[in-house]
């Protein structure tokens, strides 16, 4: 569909009706506050007696949540990051955990993650140990018994790697000497906490999305499926998109800000394709387009008041006047000097009138003059310059340079009748004559050109008056031609950038031809002389092969632009069908531009405003990023989307089993990445299309998609299931670090 078709007509231009945008500001992970050590929980736990309390750790890749099993909420929520460095000045080691890392720039640069990027598998055990240290410290474990004397319940990824589990178990028993340890899967804890018995658990979290069918409180892990897409990947994707959208954005776009942007602005579209195709349409774009204002410093331009400006102008004028006066005075002085000189030479001239030749020579020598002619010339020159100067001082019209009715008398005399001086004179006269003639010719040409243009204009006007239709048609054709020329030029420019294009190849051929001593073409004709240059157009080849020489191009560009402008002006004036909207400028106007709507929203963009340069516009991205979980191919993930996975589990793997309907009745959503608006409706509608008609389909969300895994684990700790599943220190010592007791909410041994 053509988006411009839905554009409103010209009369409701947007500027007038649109309010200034609501600005959102970027947020990012930062240091919040110091977390103190709280001993009360530990005292309470001890007072409850052995085996009734556990430390519950939800070891998630976005944040590690830890607390006491008898409490409602986790005490700590720590980002799984760690920084350690040595301060050289103080010769001291520093270690920071969680958001504390952000408190110091050095620490920030040493930040390391516990998890392998984009997965829920712990890869850095030094970081993991420090995280656990932090947790036990802040929870007030005093270590009186030389270890952590509380059982541990911990979550892990679905189908966690045996090596990762083994390492964790080793750390727990060897380093912290815990009495017992039990593992479970976070999403299953969440489901259990929300009283799920049989259903399909859809857990979309920070690093991945899992779909696990659960039958009678027992997870069918062999049917579990993982999609490698979660909040982290979404943030990375958005970052990639925005960097491409604003390649020269002056602000810093980091992944942490992206997570906040996704959380605050993105939502799942109920009908993606339908909503998407209208997303950049004009109507309502101001609501769909969210503006993120990054910090910037306004360049302050000192605005001068009217008065100041006037004063400055006056000052300028004043100084100009002074300069003029000075110049006039100088000129006058010079003039006087010249006049005196003239008078003197005239006097000399008078004096030599009736003198002997010898005397004349003496006088002239004393004046440094060669002969009488020279004296006369000097006088003439002085006289002329004085007259000119006077003219200038008075400021009247410059006197027409009087054509010296120079005598060309000698020109007709043959050379042999002249002496040396005569010959020189003759040469001089010839030169004078030719230059005078040339000047006259040029003048005549100029006049003829002027007359021709006038004539053309007259004919054009006449034609317009007599045959307006033909005239207009002609103008239109000219306009179209100019446009085509501009387009051709742009295309040529673009093509020359591409080595393989026809234009470039032709150019290379011309260069080769010029460089070659025996151009192929000529040889074929059997003509040795190629006559290059005989035709003036031949030289055009050098213009053709010149590339990147901007000066010439600019000129041409200017020229075409000017032609276009005059043609459009003519048409605007005389053609009733040609309105402002038809001009090229109006057609390339930003209100018509889809790209403008995409990059800058529904308002004009002022590239000189620092505020606007520092703005990000989120529009299509708001639904494009969350959509990936339903269509992973959008972001290049070669996996099926969650609807397809869920439908595959429900219709193929559970086909025929009586459980299928029960599972359908409870599709359960958990995990931070499932919090998008419309996630449940979208999944329900998607599944409905793939299931038999009339299937009883119910989707529900976890009460708290983020904290319920921890709460579920806390609830489970202390119950019978936990007691059976926990591996004690004795069992560990006897059976080794690979030993695991399977339980309904945990991974199977593999």
């Amino acid at each position, binding site marked *: 569909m053509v988006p411009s078709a839905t554009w409103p007509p010209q009369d409701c231009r947007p500027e007038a009706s649109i309010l200034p945008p609501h600005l959102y500001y970027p947020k990012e992970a930062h240091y919040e506050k110091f977390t103190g050590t709280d001993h009360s929980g530990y005292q309470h736990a001890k007072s409850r007696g052995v085996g009734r309390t556990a430390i519950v750790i939800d070891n998630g890749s976005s944040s590690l949540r830890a607390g006491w099993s008898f409490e409602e909420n986790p005490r700590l929520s720590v980002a799984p990051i760690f920084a350690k460095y040595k301060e050289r000045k103080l010769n001291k080691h520093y270690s920071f955990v969680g958001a504390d890392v952000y408190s110091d720039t050095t620490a920030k640069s040493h930040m390391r993650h516990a998890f392998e990027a984009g997965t829920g598998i712990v890869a850095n055990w030094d970081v993991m140990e420090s995280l656990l240290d932090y947790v036990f410290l802040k929870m007030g474990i005093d270590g009186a018994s030389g270890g952590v004397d509380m059982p541990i319940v911990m979550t892990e990824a679905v189908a966690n790697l045996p090596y990762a589990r083994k390492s964790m178990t080793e750390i727990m028993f060897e380093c912290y000497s815990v009495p017992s340890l039990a593992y479970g899967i976070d999403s299953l804890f969440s489901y259990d906490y929300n009283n799920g018995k049989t259903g399909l658990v859809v857990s979309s979290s920070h690093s991945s999305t899992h779909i696990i069918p659960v039958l009678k409180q027992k997870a069918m892990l062999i049917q579990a499926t993982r999609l490698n897409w979660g909040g982290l990947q979404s943030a990375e994707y958005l970052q990639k998109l925005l960097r491409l959208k604003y390649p020269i954005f002056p602000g810093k776009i980091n992944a942490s800000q992206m997570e906040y942007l996704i959380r605050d602005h993105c939502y799942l579209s109920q009908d993606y394709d339908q909503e998407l195709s209208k997303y950049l349409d004009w109507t309502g774009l101001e609501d769909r387009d969210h503006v993120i204002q990054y910090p910037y410093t306004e360049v302050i331009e000192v605005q001068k008041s009217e008065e100041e400006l006037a004063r400055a102008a006056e000052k300028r004028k004043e100084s100009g006047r002074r300069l003029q006066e000075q110049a006039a005075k100088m000129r006058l002085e010079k003039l006087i000097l010249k006049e005196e000189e003239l008078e003197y030479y005239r006097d000399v001239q008078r004096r030599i009138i009736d003198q002997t030749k010898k005397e004349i020579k003496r006088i002239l020598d004393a004046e440094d003059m060669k002969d009488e002619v020279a004296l006369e010339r000097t006088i003439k020159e002085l006289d002329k310059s004085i007259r000119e100067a006077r003219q200038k001082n008075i400021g009247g019209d410059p006197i027409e340079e009087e054509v010296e009715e120079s005598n060309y008398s000698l020109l007709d005399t043959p050379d042999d009748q002249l002496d040396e001086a005569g010959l020189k004179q003759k040469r001089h006269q010839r030169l004078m004559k030719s230059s005078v003639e040339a000047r006259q010719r040029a003048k005549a040409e100029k006049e003829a050109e002027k007359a021709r243009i006038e004539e053309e204009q007259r004919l054009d006007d006449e034609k317009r008056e007599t045959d307006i239709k033909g005239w207009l048609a002609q103008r239109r054709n000219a306009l179209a031609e100019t446009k085509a020329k501009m387009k051709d030029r742009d295309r040529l420019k673009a093509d020359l950038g591409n080595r393989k294009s026809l234009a470039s190849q032709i150019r290379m051929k011309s260069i080769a031809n010029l460089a070659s001593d025996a151009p192929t073409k000529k040889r074929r004709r059997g003509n040795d002389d190629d006559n290059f240059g005989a035709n003036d157009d031949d030289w055009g080849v050098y213009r053709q092969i010149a590339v990147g020489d901007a000066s010439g191009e600019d000129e041409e560009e200017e020229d075409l632009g000017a032609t276009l402008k005059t043609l459009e002006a003519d048409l605007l004036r005389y053609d009733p069908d040609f309105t402002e909207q038809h001009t090229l400028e109006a057609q390339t106007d930003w209100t018509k*531009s889809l*790209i403008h709507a995409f990059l800058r929203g529904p308002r004009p963009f002022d590239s000189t405003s620092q505020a606007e340069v520092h703005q990000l516009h989120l529009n299509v991205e708001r639904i494009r990023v969350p959509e990936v979980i339903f269509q992973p191919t959008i972001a290049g993930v070669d996996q099926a989307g969650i609807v397809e996975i869920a439908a595959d589990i429900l219709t193929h793997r559970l086909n025929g*089993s009586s459980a299928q309907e029960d599972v359908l009745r409870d599709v359960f959503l958990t995990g931070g990445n499932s919090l998008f608006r419309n996630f449940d409706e979208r999944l329900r509608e998607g599944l409905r299309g793939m299931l038999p008609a009339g299937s009883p389909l119910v989707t529900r969300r976890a009460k708290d998609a983020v904290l319920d895994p921890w709460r579920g684990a806390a609830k489970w700790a202390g119950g019978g299931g936990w007691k059976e599943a926990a591996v004690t220190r004795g069992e560990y010592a006897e059976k080794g670090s690979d030993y695991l007791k399977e339980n309904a909410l945990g991974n199977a041994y593999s």
Partner: protein
Amino acid sequence: MTVPTAEAIAHQELIDKLDIHSIQKPFRNPHWKPNQRRNKNIKTILGDAVRKEVSSLMPTKDNSGAATPSPAGGSSTTSISGSSTPANPPPSTTLQPNLAQASRNLSKLVLERNMRTSGVSTAPNATYMNIESAPSLAHGRHYCDITGLPASYTDPKTRLRYHDKEVFGVVRTLGQSVAEQYLEARGAHTVLK
């Protein structure tokens, strides 16, 4: 040496307070000496697992015939070691084969098989690799690489998909490297190996 400002002092106090390195951790076992090379990424872990399996299979020449994957499946596992008779029957036949499993590549299959044949558990397991979702069977829709809108066209030069004429104009102004970045966002870029 410059005199530290009040701000710098406050910051120093803060980071001293936040530091956990200097805090005593009595709950830690002082004799705990972790393996220096315990940090491994998933690729290494999986590689190690394969190597371990291979080396454990190598010396026992007598089972080489049985270890050849046979199409019959389950039955061959019993003949390798008598001790590991499957305790659990194979999963109910009414359940359809796992589609994800079907589309795994051969090396994963072999690894999977070896893990199973090594004898501890005989029921098919969910492993980190085999629970990964298979490629989509649905026909993927095309979206504009620049704007994200539905795209009906592809530029043959850059292979970018675009929504309309105006976007095409933009596509043509992009350099090769920028076009490649757009393709990368969709996972369609050329990878030189």
